[in-house]
């Protein structure tokens, strides 16, 4: 089935690319999803001081390492965008794959953490703290995976020099995923 882009896609009344507008609206809808989940957790946490005890069983060094990895991967996607804008496709392609690699390291560390915690008996069902922990970090992890898959698809286009603005759009999404982690890390790892 061939697809012909309608005229609508070529218009830009606001002067901003439509893709950029759309990705910001995606981020808005994601903010309220994570915002709702985090707000629920915070409301519970305020009523249950004993959850600080449970939080001490999450690994702060592992979380800190993941924070570092994720922030670095945000830098590399910016560099990929910059390289794409400058027309350096090979460099952009490499930086995108650096970012995907960062996501991969994040997930590896995450799975190490989960394995350790589960083997200590802190499963999804241990209590509501752990339910929130797995739900929130799991949902975030799904966003990381989704971002990695989309980046891999975009990198194919970058190699051919097609759809270069998409590097910027996935970058905006990736920053959002990063920022969500910056909320999850203190709430589930640092606050004891």
């Amino acid at each position: 089935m061939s697809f012909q882009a309608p005229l609508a896609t070529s218009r830009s009344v606001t002067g901003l690319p439509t893709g950029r507008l759309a990705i910001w609206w995606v981020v808005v809808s994601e903010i309220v999803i994570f915002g709702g989940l985090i707000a629920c957790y915070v409301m519970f946490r305020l009523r249950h001081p004993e959850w600080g005890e449970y939080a001490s069983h999450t690994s702060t060094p592992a979380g800190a390492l993941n924070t570092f990895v994720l922030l670095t991967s945000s830098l590399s996607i910016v560099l990929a965008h910059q390289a794409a804008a400058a027309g350096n496709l090979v460099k952009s392609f490499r930086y995108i794959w650096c970012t995907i690699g960062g996501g991969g390291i994040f997930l590896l560390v995450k799975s190490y953490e989960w394995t350790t915690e589960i083997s200590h008996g802190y499963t999804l069902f241990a209590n509501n703290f752990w339910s929130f922990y797995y739900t929130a970090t799991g949902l975030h992890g799904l966003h990381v995976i989704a971002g990695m898959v989309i980046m891999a698809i975009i990198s194919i286009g970058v190699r051919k020099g097609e759809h270069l603005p998409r590097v910027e759009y996935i970058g905006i999404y990736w920053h959002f995923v990063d920022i969500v982690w910056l909320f999850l890390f203190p709430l589930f790892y640092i606050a004891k």
Partner: protein
Amino acid sequence: MAEAVTTAETTEGAHSHHGEPDFWSKYIFSTDHKMIAMQYMFTGMIMALIGGYMAYVFRMQLAFPGESVPGYGTVTPLAYNSLITNHGAIMIFWVAMPILIAALGNFLIPLMIGCDDMVFPRVNRLSYQIFLLSAIILIASFFVPGGGFGGAWTAYPPLSAQSQYNLTPFGAPMWLLAVALEFVAFLLGGINFITTTMNARAKGMKMYDIPIVVWMIVIASILFMASVGPLIAGAVMLLFDQVLGTTFYNPDAGGDPVLWQHLFWFFGHPEVYVVLLPAMGVVAEVITVFARKKLFAYKTILYTTFATGILSFFVWAHHQFIAGIDPRMAHIFTVTTVLISIPIAEMLFCYIATLYGGSIRLTTAMLFALSFLAEFLIGGVTGIYLGASGTDIYFHDTYFVLAHFHYTFFPIAIIGFFTAIYYWFPKMFGRMMNETWGKIHFWGTIICFNGIFLPLFVLGMGGQHRRIYNFNNFPDLATPEMQDLRIFATWSAVAMLVFQIPFLINFTVSLFKGKKAGKNPWNANTLEWVAPSPPPHGNFAEMPVVYRAPYEYSVPGREKDYWPQNMPD
């Protein structure tokens, strides 16, 4: 008439097709916004028939408890719960949303802003496919062991969370999954509506040249997007509670069942305005065309819409006055709830002022639009009793709430839809609907609608609770007087369903045999009437350019009483 205006933009080339598209790519996998609108509309209409059938079954059970219902059989308590739950869910999520937001948004936005399609046509197609999947999952859930979900459309835990209470171990998670998928579909659609309106308007169309109905659908999409997130998170938590056995909402294990109520109504109340606003927009278009008069206070209507949208995020806890919330918080929510009636009332006054001094033409569309104002007004006024925490303590969970709610949602979803369909049918299908049959349908529907729900106000004030299978089990509520009112409401409901037959016949016959409609049968100003009826793929032969605001009717000194937006002089 100088309709065609020279412009650099043409649809030539962008739509050069290699021959006629086959059935599948034309009707099933189309990316054309009009075809997606039709898919949404027909799916919504089929779901409305299913939801209406459910209402018929449980109304019959209430009027004649225990007797076999013709066309269904004996209603068991479990089936009763499932019927009322899915009636509510279907009518809101699978009728009001797809018809008012998705069908009208898809059909009208590109046409009314002078564009050939949405800016993300394939995302649009995906949106409908996810929606269709959600509808299929919902309908499939009626046929699994235990039947469809029976925990009421609000799905309060622990009833909804634990299958030993709701007795629908498979129906409950399927219902939740269907609702969540439906949300995803409308998030995708909403992003499309917002970005299309922001970026793809015709040359010359400034912010205040956008027709009110487009504004309203876009604002409704933003409200939906900003309110549904916490409920998506909450639905994931509820699904985990149902399927995996977590205890987010289980008070025995330190969970909080009221949390769900907050998440649900934080979405649920803005949702009322999500569906109200498109209906208000439709009514604005119709009354201004058939009053042949400029819409009164365009900007005021727009600003009151913004005010309604913002306030709608601060009223949700009026659903929870007896859920154990702090009385001081109840006071605050009483104030915000009563406040929100101000912008809505102002909007209604603007509409009435539009009618004042107009040369009114009582077409079927206009009749439905006027009845919307009258019926919604009753819904709004009775809402004040429920928004005030003092009276709500008595009225909570009675049929008074139910009647109030239907006096808002019936005008929105059903009357709003009929207003739109009688008005835009010529544009959608290129033929006129029959006005006589339309008027029979109108009077039958409106009279029977009041016949159903006015008695329910009385029953509610008499203390009749909602969601009760058989009132004979409650001697105080089983009096002959109350039973007579129930029977009257039930026969009204049956009659109203019967009066939809003229509509369905009129609709079907007009599709094929109706009088051919020209481009602009109502002599309206907005851009969709510039396109041929029905609009071809690409909508306009040449893209229109906008020169003025959309409601310049009966302008003094002009020969014609309308002045299309795309006409240079």
